[in-house]
């Protein structure tokens, strides 16, 4: 054909691609870190001990030196992005830059800590990160299961809360952790069931019903807590706890072993679930159908996929997972208390979005948020000048930046939040 192969008119591509902008930002931030954190840091050795306390082997670096050095590394990564390296370098370089910036910050903080406290126990940090990330991982997985099949799940908070409550209640009544665990899962599924029925059967806006269900869960568990648990804690709110299970061999690995593999069932469950959901989503028939229903339900329907049934099933599954996440509070370390999830469900939602609706992405995001949380605890302990509140804001701010497309674009499943009506 005559004009098929004519080249397109030239496009003017600006110098400031997204990668370059981020590179410039990183360069600036790194340079600032070197210039600010360096002088603020003291000449003390910053010790990162490979144990739970000050003792044992440690990675050491002189505070000022470390702060400046890592700041410069971050700046260098930024500069590398700025000069325009190939695309595939983007991820690694950005990672190096961010990690270096955090290290620079830590060198300052650790060296400036009160005398005798110039150390950071890595085992503790790592374990804390994972434990604080636990409900986020479960919650975000619940989000993945729902949203990949096209149902927006803002009710994660409510699912976690109801799970925690049901786990505590039935765990206490029966005195059996396993029954408690099952009850917790069912508790989460209860909220999920409501979400599914209202969103799928009655076509109620999914965000609206999610928000309302959260308030409902807060009210319901709060009400029953005050009526039952507060008046007779012995009978209703003394849940048994899962013990610590050491995994042979793995628990002997330095740092990682004691941090991760001498933990309770929930951590193992979370990691296994992430893997299972990831594989199932991208490698199995169920996953293919789930994703198709989340992207283009009409197409799936024309091929004989039962759209609504699949959505029901996945939303209920999500409830089970989130319920177990709730149990990770009451069947591992605490008793139930009113509104004990305190917004973690929404950070889980943030992790889901930040992790781009993928199980592994959500895991990484959850860990990042967990680390921010744990860092806050640590800084509080060493009387840092950085207010812990600002660290606590970090997950939320990071998500806003992600959603605004400043840190790469996030794209939700195309049919997420849209009710499916035949014909």
């Amino acid at each position, binding site marked *: 054909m005559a*004009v098929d192969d004519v080249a397109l008119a030239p496009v003017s591509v600006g110098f400031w691609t997204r990668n370059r902008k981020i590179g410039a930002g990183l360069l600036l931030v790194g340079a600032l870190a070197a210039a600010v954190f360096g002088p603020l840091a003291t000449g003390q050795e910053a010790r990162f001990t490979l144990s739970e306390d000050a003792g044992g082997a440690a990675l050491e670096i002189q505070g000022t030196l470390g702060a400046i050095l890592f700041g410069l590394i971050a700046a260098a990564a930024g500069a590398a992005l700025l000069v325009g390296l190939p695309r595939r370098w983007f991820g690694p370089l950005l990672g190096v830059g961010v990690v270096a910036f955090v290290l620079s910050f830590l060198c300052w903080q650790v060296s400036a800590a009160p005398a005798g406290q110039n150390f950071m126990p890595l085992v503790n940090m790592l374990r804390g990160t994972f434990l604080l990330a636990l409900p986020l991982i479960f919650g975000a997985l619940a989000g993945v299961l729902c949203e990949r099949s096209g149902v927006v799940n803002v009710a994660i908070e409510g699912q976690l809360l109801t799970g925690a409550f049901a786990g505590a209640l039935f765990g206490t009544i029966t005195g059996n952790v396993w029954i408690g665990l099952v009850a917790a899962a069912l508790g989460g599924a209860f909220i999920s069931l409501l979400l599914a029925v209202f969103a799928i059967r009655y076509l109620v806006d999914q965000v609206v019903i999610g928000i309302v269900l959260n308030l409902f869960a807060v009210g319901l568990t709060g009400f029953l807590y005050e009526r039952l648990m507060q008046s007779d804690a012995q009978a209703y709110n003394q849940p048994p706890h899962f013990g610590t299970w050491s995994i042979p061999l793995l628990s002997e690995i330095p740092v990682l072993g004691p941090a991760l593999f001498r933990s309770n069932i929930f951590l193992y469950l979370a990691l296994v679930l992430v893997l299972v959901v990831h594989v199932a989503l991208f490698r199995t028939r169920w996953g293919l159908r789930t994703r198709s229903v989340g992207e283009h339900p009409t197409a799936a329907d024309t091929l004989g996929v039962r759209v609504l049934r699949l959505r029901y099933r996945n939303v209920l599954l999500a409830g089970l997972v989130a319920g177990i996440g709730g149990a990770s509070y009451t069947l591992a370390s605490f008793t139930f208390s009113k509104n004990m999830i305190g917004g973690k469900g929404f950070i889980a939602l943030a992790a889901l979005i930040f992790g781009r609706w993928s199980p592994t992405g959500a895991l990484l995001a959850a860990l990042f948020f967990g680390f921010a949380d744990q860092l806050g605890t640590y800084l509080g302990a060493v009387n840092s000048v950085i207010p812990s509140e600002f660290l606590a804001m970090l997950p939320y701010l990071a998500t806003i930046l992600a959603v605004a497309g400043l840190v790469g674009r996030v794209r939700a499943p195309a049919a997420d939040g849209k009710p499916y009506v035949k014909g």
Partner: protein
Amino acid sequence: MEPGEIHALLGENGAGKSTLMNVLYGLLQPDEGEILINGEPVQIKGPGDAIAAGIGMVHQHFMLVPVFTVAENVMLGAEQVRGGITGFLDRRRARREVAEVSERYNLRVDPDALVEDLPVGIQQRVEIVKALTREVDLLILDEPTAVLTPQETEELLAVMRSLKAAGKSIVFITHKLKEVKAIADRITVIRRGRTVGTASPEATEDELAAAMVGRSVSLEVTKAAARPGEPVLQVEGLIVDDERGHRAVDGVELTVRAGEVLGIAGVQGNGQTELVEAIMGLRPVLSGSVMLAGDRIDGWSTKRVLRAGVGYVPEDRSVDGLVMEFSVAENLVLDLYDRPPFGSGLALRPDAIASSARERIEQFDVRTPSADAAVGTLSGGNQQKVIVARELSRPLKLFVASQPTRGVDVGSIEFIHGRIIRERDIGTAVLVVSSELDEVIGLADRIAVMYRGRILGIVGPETPREEIGLLMAGVTPEPAAADNAGAGKAGGPDSPGSDEEEHE
């Protein structure tokens, strides 16, 4: 239906063809009547039953998941799995199947390509492959040529012949007579949800058309010769991207003079939409310029363009043209609500809005229970009249009408065409974009044919439609295949809503 037969289902837009086939495919449930396969009555409750009964369908709007690969789309719903209940996908086998089918029927597709990256013609191929891997005996093609160029249409017809040779039956739904005559073994004409006749391909086009339409419709527009004046709209070197960042308008040069109608013809999706949106300030102009009566207007806001004396009928009234929940009166001032007499300062003037609405409804013959009725309750033709009324009730320099009569009843078409010509005659420059070639020929004083984001040529309305058809296919006037005139009767696809049609 016989095995190895191509049966054409012919009917106007909205005659009930698509609905009938959706029932056959189990997407809609019949209220009465039954379906017989090999003499047996069958109940088709859902697409699953249809597939099991050996029926496959290629929908007018493709049923493909854009972010999936071709292979994933093909295997969805009929996945080959390993590992028992865990249901691991056997991707290798899926790929092989795609390769086999595309080999056997000469339908080249890359199993690993992402569907969203493929051009429309290839996506349709994927749909056909998808149906064929399900071992169907009966394939339903719903308006398959609506989005294709004549050349792609030819390829499709070839594919259909080879399928027929392989013993497959095909139901071919269309409203294009030429294609029907070219390929069908038998023709059923449907009108208003009823079978009005069966014909053989030997029937003449006129006979078929008469059966299809029910009464003779003339799209002929009576008009005097144009008296073009000064250039009003001048587009130079315009480059515009679509929302996916693909080049949609690729260096368009256009001039529209006062008192003339410039029609833009072309198969849908060749950049017409983006061109018009760029003129209206709805889409960023990457390069080039748009001049309106001497002012450079690219970069202006839409409001400013409208206020400068441009009227605009967008191509999809339900998306861009009207706020369905708003009343007729409110829709009539959608662009003038903040100007006297309708608004003063921060406040609206409901009285002025209402009285002007009554006037417009009268003038433009809008059939509505009242000016306060939600515009969504009106018929398509009356909705379109509301838009035309709104845009033509202020003094214009330029009137841009995109698919002005799509999905509109015949009476409203005549009315709207008349109004467009009247606007031309009072000296407004008019730009009409339509994928109905007949409409363009009827209205335009000059016809610009658009293909792949470029104007391939500007011809007079007396030009033979075959010649225009070739241009629409991207063939410049040099000699080309003679029977490539499939585009001669090119028309837009059924409007999306018309699927909701009754049937017997």
